[in-house]
């Protein structure tokens, strides 16, 4: 409420006049002689009490009349919403935004938040609308704005639950604003019930402001004093190595809050059994590293849980991992039997791949006459194309998802290659420019492998500085190959000839290397990049992807991809993406994923189990690390940051129409009428019993 003439408030001082007179008249009584007290003694005390009451009522009426007159002359006027409230109560919309992120599980915050929400719903006046939404880093409207608060109360009682999710305030308030604006009532209040965790405030929301007229009331259930332990910075080292003997689990236990923690027990469970335990001390604000060896893990995926004991907030006490111990992938190098050679063309390949702890591959040399293996990877190392049946087998092997590397060296005749591999690969060997045999022999000049596709998965690890230099290797001879549609040149020599070509054929992949895998045509085996390059080439051929040991709550997971990777690791035939899949969440409830191609949202911490008819695997899911940090902001300040600075109605710069202004100021006339009524009442009351017949005694 504002006033046109606030100076008239000084008139309220006049209200003090009757009071002063009243007080002055109560001065110490003086003695006065009177002829007789015989009449005064006969006056009853009841009459005196009645008169006292009457005089107090008169005093009240006079004071009120003065105040109302002063108010009327001050010309009060109301804002639109106030005016509506004054002349008839306006229905309000109460939007209850309840934080159900993981941090609300700290001690009794969740219970208090629910009680606060229920109290708000219960206190809504008849005609008011009540809406309920729960938010974390997702927003869910539980009940839209409705005049029946029992719907919201029922949801608060049974329909909402604490989650493992993170916090994001901005989107929650945007959703609440949407409800408030669509409710269509004159007034909207958003009750923001949260622990006001700082991590929930995201910088990108700082420009957002609630619409004008929407009131934001924070309900703070958090506290400045807290203590929470959480496991962070988990790393699995050595899982990629052979035999999983050197796998180590490293992590740190962080202590958030204001208290030091002593004798904190940290346990490691693998496959449901506790395998190790530590007891540590942590000071507040610090983190303590822990290291667990995981020896003797069999090949495959193992559910592992790191657990810290902390009763205040239990949801982040466990850290879930799906630790994978890999078995070595078999690689077969096919050679022509040639007793004249003093060493096998796969000599350097064997040296590079058969390294116990450094390679996930195990190379076996087989002869062209040997039967082809049904699983694993093939390296066609400087061997002839073989007969047509052999080529058909190779083609079927690749189409079924197998990986084949073809090394074109001195034994590869252009005619033979073009007849055999060239029949189903878009790769041909051109005539040799120097010699009719179609291959380049060592000479004084050489070429370098300079034009390399560093963005390709094979070369991506070498893209960082000092991660590998290919130009140091000299190629004295190479096959001049030409590629057709469907082939991709991944590296070229400095003379423009393709050095490494990739061909995708249905589910499988083929790599064609235009020089020898040993030192017969180049000195690449003498270079540091030799072993990594071949390991990368084999990874590419088997379509290997780094396995993620865990996911975070809120991420999406493709069960199909996870199944395919698992199948690849186990060197199984590739899984069709349309295969039926069953996903069970940590509560053993089936998730709605009909096929492996569907994606599911990870909403709970724990192990998700993904099953198909052929295999099953696990996905570990953990709460967002930032949610464990319970550092909080000031609720009022945070709320103030979202409120619009604009006025709810009638911006100041917009002059009001005279009729509207008069309408809003009409309350002054009501005040004046009320004052007049008071004065008339005072007059009637003061003249009560003073009718003319009683005003004087006739003589």
């Amino acid at each position, binding site marked *: 409420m504002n006033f046109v003439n606030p100076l008239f408030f000084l008139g309220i001082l006049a209200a003090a006049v009757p009071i002063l007179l009243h007080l002055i*008249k*109560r*001065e110490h*009584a*003086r*003695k*006065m*002689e*009177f*002829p*007789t*007290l*015989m*009449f*005064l*003694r*006969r*006056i*009853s005390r009841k*009459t*005196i009490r009645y*008169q*006292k009451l009457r*005089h107090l009522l008169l005093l009240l009426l006079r004071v009120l009349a003065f105040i109302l007159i002063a108010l009327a002359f001050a010309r009060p006027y109301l804002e639109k919403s106030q005016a509506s409230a004054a002349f008839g109560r306006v229905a309000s919309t109460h939007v209850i935004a309840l934080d159900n992120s993981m941090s609300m599980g700290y001690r009794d915050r969740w219970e208090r938040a629910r009680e606060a929400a229920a109290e708000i719903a219960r206190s809504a006046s008849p005609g008011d609308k009540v809406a309920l939404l729960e938010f974390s880093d997702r927003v869910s409207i539980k009940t839209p704005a409705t005049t029946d608060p029992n719907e919201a109360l029922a949801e608060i009682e049974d329909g909402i639950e604490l989650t493992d999710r993170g916090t994001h305030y901005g989107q929650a308030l945007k959703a609440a604003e949407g409800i408030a604006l669509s409710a269509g009532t004159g007034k909207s209040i958003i009750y923001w019930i949260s622990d006001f965790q700082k991590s929930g405030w995201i910088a990108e929301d700082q420009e957002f402001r609630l619409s004008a007229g929407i009131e934001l009331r924070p309900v703070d259930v958090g506290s400045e004093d807290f203590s929470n332990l959480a496991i962070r910075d988990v790393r699995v080292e050595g899982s990629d190595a052979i035999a999983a003997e050197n796998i180590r689990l490293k992590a740190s236990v962080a202590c958030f809050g204001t208290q030091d923690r002593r004798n904190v027990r940290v346990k490691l469970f693998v496959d449901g059994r506790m395998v190790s335990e530590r007891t540590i001390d942590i000071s507040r604000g610090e983190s303590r590293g822990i290291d667990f060896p995981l020896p003797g893990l069999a090949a495959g995926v193992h559910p592992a849980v790191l657990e810290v004991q902390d009763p205040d907030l239990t949801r982040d006490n466990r850290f879930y991992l799906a630790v994978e111990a890999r078995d070595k992938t078999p690689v077969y190098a096919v050679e022509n039997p040639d007793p004249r050679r003093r060493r096998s063309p796969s000599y350097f390949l064997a040296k590079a791949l058969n390294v116990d702890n450094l390679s996930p591959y195990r190379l076996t040399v087989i002869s062209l006459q040997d039967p082809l293996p049904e699983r694993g990877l093939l390296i066609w190392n400087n061997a002839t194309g073989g007969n047509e049946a052999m080529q058909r087998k190779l083609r079927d092997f690749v189409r079924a998802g197998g990986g084949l590397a073809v090394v074109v060296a001195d034994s590869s005749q252009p005619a033979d290659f073009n007849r055999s591999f060239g029949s189903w690969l878009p790769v041909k060997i051109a005539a040799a420019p120097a010699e009719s045999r179609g291959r380049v022999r060592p000479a004084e000049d050489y070429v370098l492998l300079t034009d390399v596709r560093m963005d390709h998965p094979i070369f991506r690890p070498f893209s960082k500085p000092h991660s590998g230099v290919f130009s140091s290797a000299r190629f004295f001879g190479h096959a001049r190959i030409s590629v057709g549609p469907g082939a991709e040149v991944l590296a070229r020599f400095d003379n423009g000839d393709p050095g490494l070509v990739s061909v995708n054929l249905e589910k499988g992949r083929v790599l064609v290397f235009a020089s020898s895998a040993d030192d017969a045509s180049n000195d690449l085996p003498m270079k540091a990049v030799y072993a990594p390059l071949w390991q990368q080439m084999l990874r590419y051929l088997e379509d290997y992807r780094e396995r993620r040991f865990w996911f975070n709550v809120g991420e999406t997971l493709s069960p199909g991809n996870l199944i395919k990777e698992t199948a690849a690791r186990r060197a199984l035939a590739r899984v069709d993406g349309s295969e039926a899949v069953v996903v069970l969440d940590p509560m053993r409830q089936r998730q709605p994923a009909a096929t492996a191609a569907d994606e599911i949202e990870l909403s709970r911490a724990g192990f998700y189990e993904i099953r198909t008819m052929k295999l099953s695997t696990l996905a570990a899911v953990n709460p967002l690390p930032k949610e464990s940090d319970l550092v909080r902001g000031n609720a009022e300040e945070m709320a103030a940051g979202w409120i619009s600075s604009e006025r709810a109605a009638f911006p100041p710069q917009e002059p009001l129409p005279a009729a509207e202004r008069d309408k809003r100021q009409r309350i002054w006339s009501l005040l004046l009428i009320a004052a007049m009524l008071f004065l008339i009442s005072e007059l009637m009351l003061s003249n009560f*019993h*003073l009718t003319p017949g*009683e005003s*004087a*005694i*006739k*003589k």
Partner: protein
Amino acid sequence: MSTFQPPALQATRFIDPLTLTRIASLELIARTVVEGFISGLHRSPHLGFSVNFAEYRPYRPGDDIRKIDWQVYGRTDKFFVKEFEGETNTGIHLILDCSRSMSYGSRGITKLEYGQFLAACLGYFAFKQRDAVGFISYDDRVVEYIPARGSIGQLNTVLHAVERVRPGEKTDFAKSLIHVSERLRRRGMVILISDLYDAPDQVMNGLRHLAFRGNDLIVFQVLDPAELQFDFPDAAQFVDMETRAEMHVIPDFVRQEYRRLLKSQINEYERECRKDRMDFALIDISQPLDSALFTYLTRREQLY
């Protein structure tokens, strides 16, 4: 009769009682008031048998032929009747209450002073009509008693007695008036001037004793305007003038009820007096004396 109001009179023709207090001589006061009062009348209605010649008037059939003045007939050959001022030998006793409560006055004149003026005026008036005038003052006993006489010096005696009156102590109405009534040997007129502050049955008992011997009784209850209106603005410790008892009173709170009780008692006096054929008049001492004189005069006229 007791509530008689002279509607045709103009208040300015009468002297304010407060002004009368500045005149030292009670006789002068009485003369001033009575003469002024009489001169205001159109004619004296109180003519009768008297030795003092009043006027001649033409003879009308029915007049007593003995009243014809033959000497005038001899000179003028017309019949004239000789008229004289009225004269009676009625005894009039003025009784003045001089108790302590009569010494109250809020407007510069006390009830007792007003009563003295009124007694003097009535005494003068009665003396002028050749009535025998007596005077009695009392409080809880008879203080002064001057029997009614018609002698020449009686007026001065009465006026001096009136002038000597001083406020006494408590009032014992019945006892005092019984003593008075025992002293009144001859039937006559009794005029009581008092505030009648006593128990109503005591008052009426005393009045009935006075009236019992055949006296015509006129009761003047003199009250101060403050007693009538109780218009005190502030709270005060009220002290009873006779008993010295004290009481804290907020006038605003008790005014209505006080007035109601006082009026109720006055009405009771009026009713009782009328029943016993007494005249009762309430006199506000802020008003001129004339209303009291009218009351007396009217009563006197009815008697004779």
